[in-house]
């Protein structure tokens, strides 16, 4: 039996009784058994509770209880999100208190939708460090080349998706942590509008920049996940008053009437390679074939927006960890503690200044989105690096094209748009196309991503050793 690779496909098979959730979850657990040693994508397993949940999902479907498209679907949850049935470590020996034995809002909503949480996905320490061989945690490797990084910080979610450990995953994104690993591993990931998804039970990094969001093989699957995750939650004041909605309804396959803005200078400033630019140009042609109009634009205040975003993230991350760093400095990974300590040198007035700059940028970018519906760019200016190459140049380059959307709080999705030639890597490595929209226009960016995927096959590509 060929197992489904997408949530949509699995949901159809579960309802036609060609597949049971028990069979599907068992297959995912077997895939983890077979490949986890090589990948390090999973930091905690929920085999027993997952099998019990799958059996319940089957009984409910058989008795006519249908919780919707996620019913019986295996999901991986990033290990900064609390789950009642598995420890939450944030991959740190210096874990903050308050995240054990409870479900995060994301986990609650997944379970209410009938989804089956099969694993806690590995991540960067506190969603900000880099792989550290001195910590007793494995770090996520890239399924396209296990000597390379899956990306940070939701690397296990992306790597596990590509390897078939689960059909959907939940990540978090403070400066690109959903979109960068999605690009590196060749999967799809959405950073929703700020406040769309509750962060209750999520180990924080940056109060005003953290986003919880979906990752999957397709934009259509991300839409299903977002519809389940989004909505108001009194435990996260940023979500209050936000309604949930059916994001799948917008996926028409057509981009007629949609204006896609492109700022070529963005890529030259980020040092994007000629090969990546060719893939990007090909992707724009695909969007045009779906009916989109490509419009050249000049994004305003890019340097100011980027600087303000980084200053706010650094300040807020240090605020979260200040006391813990003082008490448990040596228990943090070296790169994590140094990254967090940077925030100690930003003064209060500078934080206020950065916040005011961001407010001004939101106004200016709202004006941009009066002229275009989406902004397209490459997701990351680099491909997945070798694990022994990770350093400041990688961590400072990877978020160059993603973190501004965190500063604005606007939605942005990354979809695979091709394979980039890399010496020594047969077939090359995946590259992501990023599509961003105005706040609240999550359905529109998903529509653009879905229309792209209906006309391309990059999102269906899987390294041969992981095919099921």
């Amino acid at each position, binding site marked *: 039996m060929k197992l489904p690779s997408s949530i949509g496909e699995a949901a159809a098979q579960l309802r036609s009784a060609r597949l049971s959730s028990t069979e599907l979850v068992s297959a995912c657990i077997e895939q983890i058994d077979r490949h986890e040693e090589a990948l390090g994508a999973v930091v905690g397993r929920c085999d027993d509770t997952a099998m019990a949940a799958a059996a319940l999902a089957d009984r409910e479907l058989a008795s006519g209880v249908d919780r919707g498209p996620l019913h019986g679907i295996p999901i991986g949850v990033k290990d900064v999100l609390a789950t009642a049935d598995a420890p939450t470590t944030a991959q740190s020996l210096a874990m903050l208190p308050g995240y054990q034995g409870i479900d995060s809002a994301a986990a609650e909503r997944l379970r209410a939708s009938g989804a089956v949480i099969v694993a806690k996905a590995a991540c960067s320490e506190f969603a900000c460090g880099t792989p550290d061989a001195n910590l007793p945690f494995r770090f996520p490797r890239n399924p396209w080349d296990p000597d390379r990084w899956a990306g940070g910080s939701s690397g296990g979610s992306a790597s596990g998706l590509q390897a078939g450990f689960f059909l959907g995953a939940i990540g978090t994104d403070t400066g690109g942590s959903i979109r960068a690993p999605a690009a590196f591993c060749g999967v799809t990931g959405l950073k929703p509008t700020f406040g769309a998804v509750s962060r209750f039970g999520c180990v924080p990094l940056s109060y005003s920049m953290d986003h919880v969001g979906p990752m999957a093989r397709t934009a259509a699957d991300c839409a299903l996940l977002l519809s389940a995750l989004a909505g108001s939650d009194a435990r996260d004041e940023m979500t209050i008053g936000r309604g949930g909605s059916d994001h799948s309804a917008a996926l028409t396959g057509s981009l007629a009437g949609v204006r896609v803005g492109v700022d070529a200078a963005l890529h030259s400033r980020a040092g994007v390679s000629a090969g990546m630019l060719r893939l990007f140009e090909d992707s724009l042609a695909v969007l045009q074939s779906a009916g989109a109009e490509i419009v050249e634009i000049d994004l305003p*205040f890019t*340097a*100011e927006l980027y600087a303000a975003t*980084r200053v706010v993230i650094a300040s807020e991350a240090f605020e979260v960890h200040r006391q813990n*760093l003082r008490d448990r400095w040596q228990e943090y990974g070296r790169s994590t*503690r*140094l990254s967090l300590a*940077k925030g100690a040198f930003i003064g209060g007035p500078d934080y206020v200044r950065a916040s005011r*700059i961001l407010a*001004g940028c939101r106004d200016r970018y709202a004006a941009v989105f009066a002229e275009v519906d989406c902004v397209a760019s490459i997701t990351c200016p680099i491909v997945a690096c070798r694990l022994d190459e990770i350093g400041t140049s990688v961590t400072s380059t990877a978020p160059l094209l993603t973190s501004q959307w965190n500063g604005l709080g606007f939605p942005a999705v990354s979809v695979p748009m091709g394979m980039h030639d890399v010496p020594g890597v047969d077939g090359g490595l995946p590259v992501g196309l990023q599509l961003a929209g105005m706040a609240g226009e999550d359905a529109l960016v998903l529509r653009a991503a879905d229309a792209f995927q209906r006309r391309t096959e990059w999102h269906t590509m899987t390294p041969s050793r992981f095919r099921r």
Partner: protein
Amino acid sequence: MSADDASRTAVDRLLMQCRLDELGLPADDAETAELAGAYRSVGAQIAILYSTAATGLLR
């Protein structure tokens, strides 16, 4: 490294050590030196926030 640069690096490092001591963060010498470098890149970002162009963004 010029004499000016060396002097600035030494000053940055001393400032860094003072701030780390004040906060009770037990960074070792190598970490303090690394943070002094990071301090410069953060400083460059902060400088952008006070540029003439950025001032135009303030409400």
